[in-house]
């Protein structure tokens, strides 16, 4: 097998609040492998650490957060030992990311053309005119009508769906190898959502992108992803091929997620129907973090955190119910 595009090993990213006295283990020992061209879905309730994980890969965390351990290898290079300047040349060029809120991610004071052209100018040293031309092509490739007029307009003159596609155009502007999309459709209405997902798939095929798709919508995962990683309280509690996860989930949390998808409209499933409160990552329960909400909980779960145990071909879960390796 060829070398994976991305390898994350035992990554830990903590938030330090209250002068270091309050520690939130938002990402706590995550390991992932991603082959080139693959699409990985990361699912989990809000607060499970998905965004923190995504931002850690780009080393673009809020000031309160710090990567305290682990390794990130991208195309064989260790990202955690890179200088700030080296990281900057990776961002937007080799790894791109789409943020959740299209209304807020464009700067209100600059034209769309300027904002789409920026990465090309910075990473490829293109002059203003060449970058403008590329910006028009990019807008056309994300299906924005009359791009030669749109480049001169400002974000507030466009709809939410258009802005999201512009953010998509920015992400692919320098032909990145890896694209991370953090809940890219949450704020869009359903028809626009479906169109946008179709567009992302098309871009992925055309640019041979490797995609990490962060979402709390399992219906989208079923449509888009080759593999799934389910996050709970900063950990990956189950990972495997999409089909295996949907056919034979091993972890009680994953099962609950799948059961919470409304049967009639799979694409709509939101992860809200699980009993109990999502955990507070600043004060996690001992043992398996899911045990206060788990229907199958038994004595050992309260005392010891389960390790990752095999559950099938390329399929593993952190649950004591699985037979030991």
């Amino acid at each position: 097998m060829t070398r994976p595009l991305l390898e994350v090993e035992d990554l830990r990213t903590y938030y330090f609040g209250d002068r270091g006295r309050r520690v939130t283990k938002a990402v706590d020992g995550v390991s992932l492998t991603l082959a080139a061209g693959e699409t990985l879905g990361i699912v989990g309730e809000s607060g499970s650490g998905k965004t923190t994980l995504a931002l850690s890969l780009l080393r673009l965390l809020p000031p309160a957060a710090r990567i305290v351990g682990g390794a990130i290898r991208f195309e064989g290079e260790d990202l955690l030992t890179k200088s700030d300047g080296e990281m900057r040349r990776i961002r937007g060029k080799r790894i791109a990311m789409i943020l959740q809120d299209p209304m807020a991610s464009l700067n209100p004071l600059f034209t769309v053309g300027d904002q789409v052209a920026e990465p090309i100018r910075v990473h490829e040293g293109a002059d203003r005119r060449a970058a403008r031309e590329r910006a028009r092509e990019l807008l056309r490739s994300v299906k924005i009508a009359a791009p030669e007029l749109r480049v001169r307009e400002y974000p507030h003159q466009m709809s939410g769906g258009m802005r999201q596609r512009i953010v998509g155009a920015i992400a692919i502007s320098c032909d990145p190898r890896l694209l991370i999309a953090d809940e890219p459709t949450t704020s869009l209405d359903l028809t626009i959502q479906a169109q946008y997902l179709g567009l992302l798939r098309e871009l992925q095929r055309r640019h041979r992108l490797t995609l990490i798709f962060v979402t709390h919508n399992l219906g989208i995962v079923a449509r888009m992803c080759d593999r799934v990683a389910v996050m709970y309280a900063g950990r990956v509690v189950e990972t495997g091929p999409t089909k295996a996860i949907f056919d034979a989930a091993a972890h009680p949390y994953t099962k609950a997620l799948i059961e919470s998808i409304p049967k009639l409209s799979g694409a709509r499933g939101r992860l809200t129907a699980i009993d109990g409160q999502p955990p507070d990552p600043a004060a996690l329960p001992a043992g398996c973090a899911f045990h206060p909400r788990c229907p199958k909980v038994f004595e050992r779960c309260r005392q010891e955190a389960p390790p990752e145990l095999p559950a099938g071909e390329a399929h593993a879960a952190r649950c004591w119910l699985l037979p030991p390796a």
Partner: protein
Amino acid sequence: MKKFVVRRIGYSVLSLLLLSLTIFFFVRVTGDPAVLLAEPGASAEDLRIIREQFGLDRPLWIQYGAFMENLLKGDFGKSFYYRTPVLELYLSRLPHSLLLAGAAMVFSLLIGIPTGIIAAVRVNRWWDSIGKVFALLGLSLPSFWVGLLLILFFSVYLEWLPSSGAGTAWHVIMPAFALGWYFAAAHMRLTRSSMLEVLGSEYVKLARLKGLPEALVIAKHAFKNALIPVLTLAGINLVIMVNVAVVVETVFAWPGVGRLLFEGISFRDFPVVQATVILGGAMIIVVNLVVDILYAVIDPRIRLER
């Protein structure tokens, strides 16, 4: 929106009315102007004639009525001391005040904006702490004290700058510094908080995700957005500066409207005091009104209210 504007204008008119009433009666508590206007050793009869000449012998409420009647016609009366129309006097002093306020504004922005940005970019580091001390000093040190220190150091000790008067560019430096000091601190604080908010925004995050150099992220994406509230405040502050420079203009003998007010108070020149206070108050009230209405136009929550 219409209702909001009407109500807001109503409040403004009411404030002005109250201001005119207050200043009219308060200035009459300061004493009898005839004593200061008459020759030394003037008789009681002389004083009575002077009072009669200025209408000060009439009952207070009749005086107020006459004053308001003239005011509505745009007539502020004549100065007791200079014997010329107060409005002319005021307008002859206004350019000096505008010059001083303009210079103080430039100074306050040149200091306030860069330090505010550095404080925000280096939030919670030592630069930010120095900035906080500076802001605290700026907001709490009285301007006359700053002015006197400046005079002591630059005029008395170094003999570099003239300590009083107007005329050359050198004259404006110290008063502008003394007046702008407080506003530099205010502008710094607002720049810092506005910048911090913008630096946490999604579009700044996206700018960083694109791999832009941090200097470009700050200078292009953050700075321009952060500047909007600062410039709004600066606009209001410019008008305030014109009208609160009494102490600074007095310390530096700067011939602006602030010094005119001070002279008016010392000579018990009632029309001068009334005119400067009411005109100054009107300027500040109008600017606040305009800003409130502009904000209402921008903010749909106010705009759509009926």
